[in-house]
């Protein structure tokens, strides 16, 4: 056990691509956590998808030993937090386990909306913040301007900001010195009942469920019986350890220390992020503050393209759920798509990650239906129903009114793109809350209905601002809205997987957009195909896919037979990637692509 004065617990707050993972790599390297041979880029991002996308999904910690200039040796616990708004709650629990944070800002790009959201969260959590200016080696770096921006926009004193290049390793030691000298040590009481914060958990093939913890008071010992207070479950601790970043077993963890435990826990779903771990007997009476049950905000249907792969999909979702209990899935039947699952996610990125992992790790071709938010349907009998799936919309005569979730969005955008961003927000039914300037950048705060954001708002925002706008949001609450269910009919048959809930004022525009898109996405058939959008029985938009006019090979002789047959086989394969609705083949990608709006 380390005495409190020689422990520093900190996390790194940064925007995607500003160099958080690279800095973490350098800190590990500098303090000798891994040999040169063992280093690879982004050591802490263990999933392929994390490395490729440059995002962190799961929290990780690493314990570093650092001998400071004052001659004393410190234990530094670096927490690598997920870096996306979808994982805001996980981030908040990571921050709760720290006393300080390094705010990494790209010295040419400056402060982004996501940085802003995370740094405010860190400040609210009472953390001491040390600003770091990264990528100082780039010719475009403007450290003085960015320092000023940090002071103007965030209100932090940046005069002592540490200028580094994580890429070249410049000034890494100064970062470690700042951690030791400028961040406070943890506080805690050793001879008190155990109180440890459950930061995150995951499934490890060798160890089973691994629980990442920060001990606040008391001590966590091997063999001890512990209780998870929110889950109200009791376990016996099998192993206690730390990551350096390799696992290393220890006998116990004391106040201020960060490490992991295993305790024959079967499912990650049995552990809840933010829960308090205490002694089974004579445990703490009061849990640590801030626990929340995870809330899924985006829902969609996942269906195997090949109906025969349903069982594989079920198994794959089960396996993924072992490691990520923050999404939900339950069986769903669609008239159009057959058997599949209705899944709930923390946000859109989360949805995309799971979808991509199903494709990549389990090789299952999927149809993803339109993402939906949770609507509250107030029925005329006074009851309230939560609606996750447009297909379950009750008969309109039974509905008194519908409420939808709204968010508060913070957008930072350079002045020259402000007009297009404001237009985008207004088109998406937004209400402006605030508009302020920091240098040449505007900070716009908008109230927006989540259902206008959930699909492609972020893509559109990036496109109208040429990639310069950054965006962050949190859910504010529910508001009544004039919402209707819009159905899409292909060849006069409703395709339930394409139906969606829309605001009445936006229905015609969305309907027209969907029909136009589907007209391009569905290949010509041997017959003409009407595509319609309808509310109730009323058609609000219509397009026609003309019948195929010409599809014949001009030349076909003896040498071509093998080739033509192979082509035919390939086409048969291609047809498997389509889903048949009546006599119409709809390609897999159409279900999502149809929802994308080119311009409002």
């Amino acid at each position: 056990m380390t005495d409190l004065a020689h422990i520093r617990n900190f996390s790194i707050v940064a925007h995607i691509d500003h160099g958080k993972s690279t800095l973490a790599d350098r800190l590990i390297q500098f303090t000798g956590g891994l040999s040169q041979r063992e280093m690879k880029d982004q050591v802490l991002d263990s999933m392929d998808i994390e490395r490729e996308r440059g995002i962190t999904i799961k929290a990780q910690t690493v314990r570093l030993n650092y001998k400071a200039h004052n001659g004393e040796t410190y234990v530094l616990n670096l927490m690598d937090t997920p870096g996306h708004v979808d994982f805001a709650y996980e981030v908040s629990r990571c921050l709760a386990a720290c006393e300080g944070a390094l705010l990494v800002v790209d010295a040419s790009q400056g402060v982004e909306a996501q940085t802003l959201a995370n740094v405010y969260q860190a400040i609210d959590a009472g953390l001491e913040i040390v600003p770091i200016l990264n990528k100082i080696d780039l010719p475009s770096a403007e450290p003085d301007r960015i320092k000023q921006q940090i002071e103007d926009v965030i209100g932090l004193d940046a005069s002592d900001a540490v200028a580094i290049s994580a890429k070249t390793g410049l000034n890494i030691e100064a970062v470690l010195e700042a951690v030791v000298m400028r961040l406070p040590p943890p506080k805690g009481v050793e001879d008190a009942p155990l109180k440890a914060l459950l930061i995150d958990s995951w499934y490890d093939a060798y160890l089973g469920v691994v629980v990442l913890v920060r001990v606040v008071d008391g001590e966590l010992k091997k063999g001890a019986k512990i209780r998870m207070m929110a889950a109200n479950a009791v376990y016996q601790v099998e192993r206690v350890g730390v990551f350096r970043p390799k696992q290393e077993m220890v006998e116990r963890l004391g106040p201020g220390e960060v490490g992991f435990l295993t305790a024959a826990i079967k499912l990650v779903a049995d552990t809840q992020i933010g829960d308090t771990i205490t002694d089974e007997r004579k445990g703490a009476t009061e849990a640590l503050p801030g626990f929340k049950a995870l809330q899924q905000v985006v829902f969609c249907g996942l269906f195997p393209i090949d109906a025969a792969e349903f069982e594989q999909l079920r198994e794959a979702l089960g396996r993924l759920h072992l490691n990520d209990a923050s999404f939900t899935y339950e069986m769903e039947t669609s008239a159009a798509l057959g058997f599949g699952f209705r899944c709930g996610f923390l946000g859109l990125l989360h949805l995309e990650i799971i979808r991509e992992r199903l494709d990549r790790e389990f090789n299952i071709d999927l149809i993803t239906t339109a993402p939906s938010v949770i609507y509250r349907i107030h029925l005329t009998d006074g009851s309230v129903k939560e609606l996750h799936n447009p297909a379950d919309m009750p008969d309109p005569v039974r509905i008194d009114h519908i409420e939808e979730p709204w968010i508060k969005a913070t957008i930072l955008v350079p002045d020259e793109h402000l007009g297009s961003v404001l237009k985008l927000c207004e088109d998406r039914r937004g209400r402006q809350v605030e508009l302020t300037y920091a240098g040449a950048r505007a900070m716009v705060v908008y109230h927006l209905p989540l259902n206008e954001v959930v699909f492609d708002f972020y893509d559109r925002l990036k496109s109208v601002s040429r990639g310069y706008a950054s965006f962050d949001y949190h859910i504010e609450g529910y508001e009544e809205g004039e919402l209707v269910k819009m159905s899409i009919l292909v060849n006069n048959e409703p395709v339930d997987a394409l139906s969606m809930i829309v605001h009445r004022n936006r229905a015609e525009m969305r309907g027209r957009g969907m029909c136009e898109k589907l007209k391009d996405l569905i290949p010509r058939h041997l017959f003409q195909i009407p595509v319609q959008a309808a509310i109730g029985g009323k058609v609000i938009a219509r397009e026609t896919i003309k019948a195929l006019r010409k599809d014949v090979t001009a030349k076909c002789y003896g040498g071509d037979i093998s080739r033509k047959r192979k082509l035919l086989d390939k086409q048969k394969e291609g047809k498997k990637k389509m889903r048949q609705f009546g006599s119409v083949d709809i390609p897999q990608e159409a279900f999502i692509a149809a929802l994308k709006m080119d311009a409002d």
Partner: protein
Amino acid sequence: MKPFAVYVHWPFCARKCPYCDFNSHVRDRYDDMRWARGIARELRAVAELQGPDRPAVHSIFFGGGTPSLMSGAAAAHVLDAIAETWTVSDDAEITLEANPNSVERGRFQDYRAAGVNRISIGVQALNDQDLRELGRLHSAEDAKAAIRLAAGIFPRVSFDLIYARPRQTLEQWSAELEEALSFGTEHLSLYQLTIEPGTAYATLHRQGRLILPEEDLAAVMFETTQNVCARAGLPPYEISNHARPGAESRHNLTYWHYDDYAGVGPGAHGRITSGERRLATQAERLPEKWLSAVEETGSSLAQTEIRTEEAAEEHLLMAVRLTEWLDLTAYRTRWGFEPSRQAIRRLEQQGLLTLENDQLAATAAGRLVLNSIIRELAALEPVAA
């Protein structure tokens, strides 16, 4: 005796045309007798695969490449080798593909003397600008001269045109087609320009520098072609082939009836019967590798056995190209499979197929979308016992 044809591939061209994806190669010099001897050896290898009970040859076709780059002696050598290997029926159709350039026209008499009785001339267009764009080395005058000359030398003449060319209008094509018909040839092959992968045109097309007629215009051009030719006494007997009744190319029909054919020379394909087995043969594509294989081992052929269901599929996708009826009773007997009955019914309702007395044919509308029809029909079903 079952009809049997021999295809000889001559892989050389004076120049590669930008639309062509056939196995053709430009070489400065080569000894054409040496290549002819190689072809003769590969012919014997095919015969060995067939075994002693060999069918008689009813058609021989020199294709390419540009077979009219061969000397008459080389063609004669190949024909002699065929006659030594198989029985060649008295009325065998012996076709050679020729370009209309003056040098090549000069060999027409030699080919005729060697035994060639049908010539197929690669005219492609009847105006000089389009010929240049298509990468052809001859002029419209050359083409016309070649057609007239051939008519006096060969009992049977055909020529090829490419239409739906970049920027071509319906009016231009109609006028060109009328001119083509005015020569009174018994057979015409009229191909819509198709962008084949790996060609120079494919690159241009990808870059947006080659604008082809839209689908609707191409469809109208096709229909016009069918009608105009039919009125002129040359109805279509296949998607792109027109003939005076009785003057159809026997060789091409071998493919579309899915009868046996030997394929020799670089890159040639064959379908032959070897005992109970149906074999696909493919010759080495690269000319020099082909020659050394043939000279060292007697053959460059790779063979694969075709499963019955695959053969049935191949037969189907060739046979429906013809205007003549496909006899389903015979088809079932031949393969033990039949096209999806459900698909036939559906396509009939859509007016794309006609089924009468267990005989099947695509309608005029169906011929335009034949690939889609084939996709649906090719869900073959085993014939119920």
